[in-house]
């Protein structure tokens, strides 16, 4: 659909491939006004526009839930598949197997992923499938009217006063433990960080798992909730500033040596992380796990890029697929010649 025009810089109204930001929009949202999910859609639109992503290479994938509806609200000219509850990972895996050139953007909810979908989540992470996997995390089931999800914190309350007495599943810790090669946490209210994380995810090859706090204004934005805007704002614990420099831009940042970690991503883009009090290196798995545990026990949540392994082979590489999309291989490459059948038959006599 989109004709690919080269450069023209992502500054004005047209991006490097000649598309206007408008062309990254979807249909009008039907989510509640103020829903965090809408803010995330905006960030996705923004990141794809700025990165000059070709919309016809993107597939949008989701399960079921308010969050899972949101792929309709961005990248309207990309294909999308709003599948069944909790099973986006398998559908996304199938799509990427069919066509390795696609850029998969998956959107799920904390219920969709953490409850019914946790099995597929585990195995997707383990496979390090190239996909951006976004959890729009509001600690509840929005679309079915506000029940606790498995990311709800211990002691968090529903509007009705019911208290959650199960510990939350930390999807970031799980993803790291299981082998995802890019794991971040962010907040729908933090435009800058979320943009940087999304762009970096777009530059990564492998599973980029983004747990994005995304308050449900209708069912989980009250006092007593640990996923409300107010709570998220005041307990956000950034691991450092993120600065993303895409591969197609001149690097003009200038950090004092020793103050940043510099992570080169798969497509040549670079991510700069300013070091805070603690010297946090997101390439260190153990540190990643312990910072998650530690912030959790402090009652805050670490945000930013938590873990990255930029060169880990992804699932499609391991399968040693031909370069072309399997989906469009012509008959003569997928149906062996008659001689093969004959040889097989001979062998069976």
């Amino acid at each position, binding site marked *: 659909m989109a004709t690919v025009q080269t450069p023209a810089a992502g500054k004005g109204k047209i991006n490097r491939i000649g598309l206007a930001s408008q062309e990254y929009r979807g249909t009008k949202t039907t989510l509640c006004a103020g829903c965090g999910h809408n803010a995330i859609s905006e960030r996705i639109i923004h990141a794809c526009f700025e990165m000059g992503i070709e919309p016809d290479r993107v597939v949008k994938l989701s399960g079921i839930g308010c969050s899972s509806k949101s792929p309709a609200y961005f990248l309207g000219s990309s294909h999308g598949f709003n599948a069944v509850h909790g099973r986006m990972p398998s559908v996304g895996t199938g799509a990427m197997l*069919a066509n390795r050139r*696609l850029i998969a953007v998956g959107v799920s909810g904390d219920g969709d992923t953490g409850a019914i979908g946790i099995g597929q989540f*585990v195995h997707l992470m383990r496979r390090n499938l190239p996909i951006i996997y976004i959890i729009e995390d509001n600690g509840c089931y929005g679309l079915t009217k506000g029940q606790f999800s498995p990311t709800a914190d211990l002691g968090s309350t529903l509007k009705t006063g019911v208290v959650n007495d199960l510990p939350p599943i930390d999807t970031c810790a799980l993803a790291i433990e299981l082998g995802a090669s890019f794991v971040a946490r962010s907040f729908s209210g933090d435009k800058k960080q979320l943009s940087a994380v999304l762009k970096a995810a777009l530059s990564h090859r492998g599973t980029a798992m983004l747990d994005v706090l995304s308050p449900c204004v209708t069912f989980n934005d009250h006092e007593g909730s640990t996923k409300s805007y107010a709570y998220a704002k005041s307990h956000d614990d950034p691991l450092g500033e993120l600065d993303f420099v895409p591969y197609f831009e001149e690097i003009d940042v200038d950090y004092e040596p020793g103050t940043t970690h510099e992570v080169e991503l798969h497509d040549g883009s670079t991510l700069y992380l300013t070091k805070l009090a603690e010297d946090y290196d997101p390439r260190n798995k153990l540190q990643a796990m312990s910072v998650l545990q530690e912030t959790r026990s402090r009652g805050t949540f670490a945000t930013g890029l938590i873990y990255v392994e930029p060169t880990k082979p992804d699932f499609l590489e391991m399968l040693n697929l031909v370069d072309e999309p399997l989906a469009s291989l012509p*008959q003569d490459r*997928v149906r062996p010649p008659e001689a093969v059948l004959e040889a097989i038959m001979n062998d069976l006599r």
Partner: protein
Amino acid sequence: MAPEVAVQEAPSQPTTRRIVNDFSIQVATVNGSGSQTANLVLLRSIFRMGIPVSGKNLFPSNIAGLPTWYTIRANRDGYIARKQDIDFLVAMNAQTAQEDVVSLKPGAAVVYDEPLNLATLRDDLTFYPVPFDKLVAGVCRDAKLRRLVRNMIYDGVLASLLRIDRAEMERALEKQLGRKPKAVALNREALDVGFAYAEQHFEKRDPYFVESMDATSGQVLIDGNAAAAIGAMMAGVTVVTWYPITPSSSLCETLIDYLRQHRIDKDSGKATFAVVQAEDEIAAIGMAIGAGWAGARSMTSTSGPGVSLMSEFAGLGYYAEVPAVIFDVQRVGPSTGLPTRTAQGDVLSTAFLSHGDTRQLMLFPSSVEECYSMAIEAFDLAERFQTPVFVMSDLDLGMNTWMSQPFRYPEKPLDRGKVLDAETLDRIGKFGRYRDVDGDGIPYRSVPGDPMPAYFCRGSGHNEWAQYSERPDDYRKNIDRLRSKLETARNWLPAPVVTINRKASIGVIAYGTTHWAVVESRDQLVNEEDVQTSYYRVCAYPFRDALTSFVERHDRVYVIEQNRDAQMLSLMKLDLAPELAGRLRSVLHYAGHPIDARTITDSILIQEGYRVEKTRPQPSHVPQSAGVGGE
């Protein structure tokens, strides 16, 4: 100690009857004892002598140590269905030997492991005791190898007793162990020892003989799962997702082997296929659906429990209109049931797989050849109709060894169905993913990554333009179109194979592996009581209109199937005019082993009002076992 000259307790007179090329051999062993090679060598050597054969393995749902029976039927007339009676027993398993012997019909022959001392059990059988342990000790020192090689000795014994061509046997052995010369040598020695022992010690007293004939030349031996695998490869499958389950695992495992051999790009060394062992069946079908949506030819393979788990996704495939091929190699249910036994029990539940007015397409291969050809066809149909297609095989077909004409190279090119291209877009004007442009209920589709307009695929309500819609008129229009799409499918799906017998007022309907027993039974009906029948073999669901005219032609129609609930008959009842439905009768067999002709013949004769001798109850072939099992 066994006497030097083996005692041959048997009907005192050597019979003068000669029964040539018409008998069943059953080898009773313990699973995990490596008898498979010996059995296949036996099967193949008879086959290579030109005699029609089939080989069926009745094995327990465990890995080692439980009773297993391998049955070879050789039949000059080409009847290769299971036969109730065993003519020649090879009793290697102490656990079951008594029961095995007791259930034989008079006149049968028994080769047995001498220490089992079976000859005292009956005086109407021919016994050939063989001191296997003693013989094998001479062949091989290594205890582990000995256990394996031991079995080859009975092949040698049988070669002598049945007059099997030893050269063919050796060739079969080489074929089986081709790449392991040491193993070949060792086994050949065992063969020789067995042969020599029999030659030396036994006088032939049973009537069973093998004689070369010419009924199998050019043919192949293969199981249905391998045949389906070859079909899938030839269909150009690109994405294979699976989760192990008996009896379907070998379908994908064989496919993987073939793909690795024949679908690696010469130049790049890279694969033109992707295979994923998924974490479960839900993921397997989810991946297949995702891949089908994104334009791949995708498939998965499973059995009953997997099909049940796939139910939700199967409904998504139907409603969102996504192609995928699902092989259901049926086993005995409900639930875990008997994982290593055969049945046709998933027919009804698959037809209605998933909630809310979902309908599924099914194909029913009867032969290994059809496993191959229907596999190819399934991919075409899935893409043509943009819906899941279920290929309903079963354990008997999938895991047992069948003879077949060699498979024919496909003549038709791949049918990728109505994939939108620029030309079509021009013709139809605006693209509406779910618009019935051609009046056949089948819309056009675009595929991610192609240059055509995109659409948003979903399992929730949508209109012609693939927009979300809860409008009653949109809903109804769409779901009515889905119904009309399946109406279109009726006459695209593989046609039934119909044999009209002008003298017949009775019709017989069957499908899948039941076919082979029906072929034999129809001849029995004519030969025994001059009961003439026509035959309609179902190859697909939904049914063609031909079903109606077939039933119309006949006064009574017997639907023969391997399940308790007359599942295919039920589907027919739903389709046929009531007057015609009233003509349907059932012959049902559901006990785990494949149906046989006698069961059908007797049941039809009884229903037709003939007197039938009560046949001896079928041996049950599976001794009590208190172990927990099942997959």
